[in-house]
């Protein structure tokens, strides 16, 4: 397990160092915009919580806030080591930034999972929660865990879409689906550059769909 973690971390470091600076700058722009949008959605959820006192909305708000924090952490780290210093930094530092980014993002997805779980889950919570532990037992790499969590969230939002049939649920489902695609492209990309670019594009599309939902839902 330790050897696998080291191999995948080295692979992540190698990928970062192969990517040209110009693409990293574009990536930083995408990530910054995505971070800002996540903050906006978090604020919207926070306002909703203040009015309704529904705890799931608080979880949702915290989730988007944590997601935003992970994005800005990565922007700051990448900006400093790859753009300002222009030397890529030491492998150890890049590894730490990468792991922090993945870990914080995973925490955000866990909050989304809790916030968007179906109400019937009260009666079936133990087996469902055990499923989330499965990837941690099989493979502790954060990317795999995040992807697995996103699969569950996407399915939950699909169920919600099927029952509510509203355009707002559609935007949320498509948003999480885009985030899932961004993670899958990161995991399965055969070419690091293309995979990296697709990851960032789909992540931005995902959060923009959330923003579109907030905008459309706010038009009364």
């Amino acid at each position: 397990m330790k050897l696998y973690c080291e191999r995948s971390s080295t692979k992540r470091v190698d990928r970062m160092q192969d990517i040209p600076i110009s693409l990293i700058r574009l990536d930083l722009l995408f990530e910054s915009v995505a971070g800002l949008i996540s903050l906006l959605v978090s604020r919207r959820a926070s306002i909703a919580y203040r009015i309704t006192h529904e705890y799931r909305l608080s979880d949702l708000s915290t989730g988007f806030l944590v997601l935003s924090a992970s994005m800005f952490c990565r922007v700051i780290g990448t900006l400093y080591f790859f753009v300002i210093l222009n030397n890529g930094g030491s492998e150890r530092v890049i590894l730490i930034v990468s792991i922090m980014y993945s870990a914080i993002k995973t925490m955000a997805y866990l909050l989304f999972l809790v916030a968007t779980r179906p109400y019937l889950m009260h009666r079936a919570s133990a087996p469902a929660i055990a499923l989330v532990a499965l990837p941690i037992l099989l493979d502790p790499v954060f990317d795999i865990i995040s992807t697995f969590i996103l699969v569950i969230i996407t399915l939950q939002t699909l169920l919600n879409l099927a029952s509510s049939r509203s355009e707002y649920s559609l935007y949320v489902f498509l948003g999480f689906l885009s985030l899932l695609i961004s993670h899958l492209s990161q995991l399965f990309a055969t070419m690091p550059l293309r995979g990296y670019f697709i990851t960032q594009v789909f992540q931005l599309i995902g959060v923009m769909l959330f923003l579109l939902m907030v905008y459309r839902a706010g038009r009364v």
Partner: protein
Amino acid sequence: MRSKKAYRSKLRILVDMLRAIQNAEGEGVGPTKILYGANLSYDRLMQYIDELLEKGLISVKKNKDGSQVYILTDKGREFLREFIKVERFSRAFGIEV
């Protein structure tokens, strides 16, 4: 697969009452219409009407015949608009309010 909560929250009851008053389109509505519009018992109705009056979401208007009707204030209208946005946002994520 999604199931609605088994009970109405207090917020939902207040919103139903405000909507019953709003549907009267400015003419005001008496307690009986709110009672049926919001599906409440009389005791609960008077308790919540006092709360809505206290929060400034509705006001009382006396008719020429001496009867009392309730109308939405600007704050009440704004609250309903905001609640619609909140409801749409929450339901998009499968969260019931």
